[in-house]
């Protein structure tokens, strides 16, 4: 997680004994690191652990105990940060969904900045850039890929709503390239169907345990999402 590395990096700038510690876990005892930084670091570790525990146990067997174990924090610390397991998973989902969208938007913005109006008009090129950025992000973090693509329990309404929000956001991005400024508009709602299908495909590939299979999906997924162009 980028955020975790940044915070870990900040921690490593502290006293020498900290530099020898694991970048994923702050050293125990007195270390002179400000309390708010410790707290932020714990939170990031918990969010990362929630995704890892979900990939390991699935929704059916997921427990707060496993999340705290993977994060290397006490149960008390867990409940200082989150009301329950689902609040932790929701925070992880929202954080990672935000990062995924930023990754796509950032890659598309960089393309337009680099190539100017030509890239603006090249809808297919922008779409492939966005898809490539998304799959690169997910392949680099397979636990996050599983967290974002798997269907959450509908009983956890906030988590289901977060997934719907992600589908809407990705759908709006896709619609941005499907709409021909000089032609007919695509069928309303088609982008949601396409994103749903793409997430199902990503979920299957992510579950295979081979992140490279996600990266390899790029040309195919691009062609499938743009079939109606």
């Amino acid at each position, binding site marked *: 997680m980028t955020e975790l590395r940044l915070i870990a990096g900040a921690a490593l700038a502290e006293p020498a004994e900290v530099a020898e510690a694991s970048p994923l876990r702050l050293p125990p005892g007195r270390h002179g690191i400000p309390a708010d930084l410790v707290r932020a670091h714990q939170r990031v570790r918990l969010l990362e652990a929630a995704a890892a525990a979900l990939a390991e146990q699935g929704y059916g067997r997921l427990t707060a105990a496993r999340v705290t174990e993977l994060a290397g924090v006490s149960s008390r610390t867990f409940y200082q940060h989150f009301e329950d397991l689902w609040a932790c998973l929701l925070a992880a989902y929202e954080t990672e969904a935000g990062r995924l969208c930023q990754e796509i938007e950032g890659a598309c913005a960089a393309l337009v900045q680099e190539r100017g109006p030509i890239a603006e008009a090249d809808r297919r090129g922008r779409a492939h850039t966005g898809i490539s950025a998304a799959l690169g992000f997910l392949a680099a973090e397979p636990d996050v890929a599983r967290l974002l693509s*798997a269907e959450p329990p509908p009983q956890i309404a906030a988590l289901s709503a977060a997934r719907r929000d992600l589908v809407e956001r990705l759908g709006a991005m896709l619609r941005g390239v499907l709409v021909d400024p000089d032609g007919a508009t695509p069928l309303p709602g088609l982008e949601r169907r396409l994103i749903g299908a793409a997430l199902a495909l990503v979920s*299957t590939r992510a579950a295979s345990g081979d992140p490279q299979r996600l990266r390899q999906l790029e040309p195919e997924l691009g062609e*499938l999402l743009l079939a109606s162009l």
Partner: protein
Amino acid sequence: MAPEASAAINQVDSLGANGGSELAVREGAMEGVLVACGELGFRETSVRAILEHSGGHRAQFYQHFESKEDCFAQAYAVWIERLCVSVLEAAATTPGWEAGVREATARLFQFVAARPAIARALFVEVQIAGEPALARHEAAVERLAAAIDSARAEIDDAEAPPEATGIFVVGGIESCVCEALSAGDPGRLWDALPELMHFAAGSYFGKEEAEGAFERTSILLERERTRLTGAEE
């Protein structure tokens, strides 16, 4: 119950076995676990909740199954196979790719409308339950994808769609079903049928065929609704 819904129940249930009392207990528990998981969620379902649906005693339950998880896995294998066979049969007995996919999707929607709790277990709760049921789910998706992929017979090699198209189309249809089930409104699936046919045909044949499939499905759906309304009056 709508005629389409009762037809779906008959299609799927007629494939099930019904024999002696032990078999009935086992079948009852397998249906009970899916109904309970569909209504309460996999995590919240207990053996007691299963027995409330199926009847029988704990001792009988444990003669057939090791646990709730085992019961779900066995029930899943049986019911997903029944549904898969029923959907594939609808496609195979309808001439033409587009009409076959439409009939198969309609058969799926009939089942969802008739047995929403079981459908929720088969499509939504399986993601929560995980293995080994999830492997059965993946196998069913691959079988349906292979059937949909018969569209390739009508496409030149030079214009062949990506290898993953079948899985992509099945995933899109399933995500639509999951959305409706999670929202507790399986009835709205019928409104999505033209859109899904647009999506399926477009994935293989491109924009023009997609628009044609949308138009034809909208007309057929409207005709069927008029016929059903007339029959009720």
